């Protein structure tokens, strides 16, 4: 390489840290790359090709997204590569998602994508390629604390994406930069404009990009064999209409129900809500009773818990990823203040976190909370090992979605709603 010929350059090169930044072609990752470049990192942009299949009535925009990402990289004068994760994405994210839907759950593929692709495969490949750090355009922050990285909510509360990031590994997080986590979205846009990047991309990248404009339902229809079935009123067990497949419906949903108006069921103008799904018999149960027990709850059982490392001042931090397999059959309903010995590290840590939630909450309940949806407000709660308890009733989130715990601005981890 030529830069070794000059001593001055040589020194600079040696001091420059290398960052591989995931670039989607959207404004957030574009500005992230820009910031890193201006901070003096040696930056390589990477487009992760996760999905390219066209769907009926929709052309997958991957090539255009890739072109947008590359155009920005070229304008910034940084290297650019395309990494093909399509096979892994299909196996780890799409198959998981389809399997969950088949079971009647409503999974969150973005969380899985971050856990398995962006902060695993991308991270590993970048490190192998000589990266010191990886970076993404997520709205989140990472702060080291006693040698362990802490995942913090973004400064822009509206855009905070830690809900999607709670399951990424400590190791990856320790090597991650979120360049725009401290910025507000308008600031990001402004910076893009100022640097002339605003013309380099067309649109914001979307979450589940591959279902994009088709919508999840049409996507699922391509992959899940569904049959029409009955919609029944739960109180009377009368058949009120028909649905396109029970897997498409979530508890609490009130749109997209094909009800038979002639029976007078719609006459009072009150909407029906989905309150129960019988996946085995392909029956969707609805009710007009907005107070139906199935819609409201004051507790949520969680599985596949994942607690972020939470270094206690006294002891060195331990890795605390709770894998689903290690916890599946564990009777974890130990009481909150139980001091009985716990056999597993994972259990100990999850309970440590649980304790922390509870104790912190005593101090200041507004400081602690659970997020049940991206951008949803934080709800105060206690956690006793596998069940979240709320002070007042909440609308029940769909099973398969995540509950993510926060202590102030720190993301503690979370679990999948059963």
């Amino acid at each position: 390489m030529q830069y070794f010929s000059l001593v001055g350059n040589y020194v600079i090169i040696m001091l420059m840290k290398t960052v591989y930044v995931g670039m989607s072609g959207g404004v957030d990752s574009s500005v992230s790359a820009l910031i890193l470049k201006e901070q003096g990192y040696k930056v390589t942009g990477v487009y992760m090709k996760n999905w390219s299949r066209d769907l009926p009535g929709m052309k997958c925009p991957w090539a255009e997204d890739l072109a947008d990402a590359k155009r920005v990289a070229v304008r910034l004068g940084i290297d650019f590569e395309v990494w093909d994760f399509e096979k892994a994405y299909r196996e780890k994210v799409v198959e998981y998602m389809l399997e969950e839907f088949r079971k009647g759950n409503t999974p969150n593929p973005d969380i899985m994508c971050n856990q398995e692709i962006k902060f695993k495969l991308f991270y590993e490949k970048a490190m192998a390629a000589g990266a010191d750090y990886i970076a993404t355009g997520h709205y989140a922050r990472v702060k080291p604390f006693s040698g362990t990285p802490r995942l913090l909510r973004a400064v822009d509360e509206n855009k905070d994406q830690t809900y999607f990031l709670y399951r990424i590994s400590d190791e990856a997080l320790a090597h991650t930069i979120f360049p725009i986590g401290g910025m507000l979205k308008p600031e990001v846009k402004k910076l893009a404009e100022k640097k002339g990047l605003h013309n380099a991309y067309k649109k914001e990248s979307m979450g589940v990009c591959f279902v994009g404009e088709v919508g999840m339902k049409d996507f699922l229809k391509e992959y899940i064999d569904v049959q029409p079935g009955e919609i029944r009123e739960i109180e009377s067990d009368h058949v009120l209409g028909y649905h396109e497949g029970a897997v498409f419906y979530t508890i609490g949903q009130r749109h997209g129900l094909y009800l038979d108006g002639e029976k007078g069921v719609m006459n009072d103008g009150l909407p029906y809500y989905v309150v129960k799904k019988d996946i085995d018999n392909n029956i969707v149960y609805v009710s007009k009773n907005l107070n139906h027990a199935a819609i409201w709850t004051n507790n949520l059982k969680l599985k596949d818990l994942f607690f972020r490392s939470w270094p206690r001042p006294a002891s060195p931090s331990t890795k605390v990823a709770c894998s689903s397999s290690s916890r599946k059959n564990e009777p974890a309903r130990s009481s909150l203040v139980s001091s009985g010995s716990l056999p597993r590290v994972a259990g100990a840590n999850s309970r440590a976190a649980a304790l922390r939630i509870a104790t912190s909450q005593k101090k200041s309940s507004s400081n602690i909370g659970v997020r049940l949806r991206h951008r949803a407000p934080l709800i105060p709660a206690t956690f006793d090992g596998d069940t979240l308890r709320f002070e007042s009733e909440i609308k029940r989130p769909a099973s398969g979605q995540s509950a993510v715990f926060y202590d102030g601005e720190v993301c503690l981890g979370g679990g999948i709603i059963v």
Partner: protein
Amino acid sequence: MIYLDHAAATPVDRRVLEAMEPYFAEKFYNPSAAYLPAKEVSADYEAAKATIAHAIGAKASDLVITAGATEANNLAFTCLKPREYPSFSERSLAPVVTGIGRSVFATSANMLLERGHSSRLLYLVTEHDSVRRVAEQYGGEAIGVLPNGLIDLEELKRKITDETELISVSLANNELGTIQPLAEVARIIREVKLERMKRGLKRQLLLHSDASQALNLLDINVARLGVDLMTLNAAKVYGPKGVGALYVSHEAKLSPLTYGGGQENGLRSGTENVPGVIGFAEAVRMAKEHLNGNRKKYAAWRKILLSELQGYELINKQHALDSFVVLCYNDVDAERLVFLLEEKGVYVATGAACAASKGVKSHVLKAIGLTNEQIAGSLRLTVGETNTEEQIYEAAKIINGVIEGEYDRCSG
């Protein structure tokens, strides 16, 4: 702005625009209507078609106006009827009995839907996707090209069987500008036909040619070229987009593409795109008028580019349209060049994988034997009426600068 992508699109010429203008709001009548103003529009439409047809040595009634070249190509492949050659029974609409003793007219609207007879349909491997994809749909078989981009005539001869009914070879390639020896192809076809007749085999054998890129750059005469079907495109010759035509000789019999009011000889029903065809005709008239002057001008510009540009390898050395310069640079990612040039207001195309070609490497460059590295470093410059000689010099300077910058960046 220096636009060097005239093979992708051309601006509508001011005169074309002016010619079209009255037919939007003023002479808007349906050509099929009975009253006089509508009849006038109908006459103008027919005259415009005649202008287009005459430019290729054909009659107005030989043309089927389509919404662009893609549709014309699809019409040719999808709607060609199975037919024996020469067929006199066609005129009397009597069923033709095939060798296996059944009526083809009774069983099949379009022959090509019957798959499994790959040699029924032959197409040049470097054809545009609007030929390739539709040919693949019907099980067509590709004919290779030589490293210079010209059709491999020996392979063509080998691949023509008694089943072969249609051969598609573009007049000029859209990525390289390579001008195919259509008359040679037609000669081979004529020989095969004669030989078939001697043996009493009466199957048709037709030549289709996509001439989208060549209409304003070559002197085209369907009889001299020996084609039976030819695709034309207004958008490449300073006419409006979404307007094209398929020339259909009396040898080729097509089934309708759309059903309705029976426009375009019943093959493509739908109210005529009058302004579009008026504009197409004006564009064709201009192309004819300036054909020789433009060719000379473009040839001179090609020379300038080849002498001013540095460090490239020329891909389309011979047999190319004067307006096409296809280059490749070693160890350079041409798509980066496209974006760098775009920043400097120079618009070019590349055959490299990614956005320029929907993530797929150019099948044309692959077919002429370029390596992946060469394809990744390939640029296509196509000059045209938006350019001036100064621009050509300026573009060469900018491209040289950008290339140098990329080499510098790569070497730290």
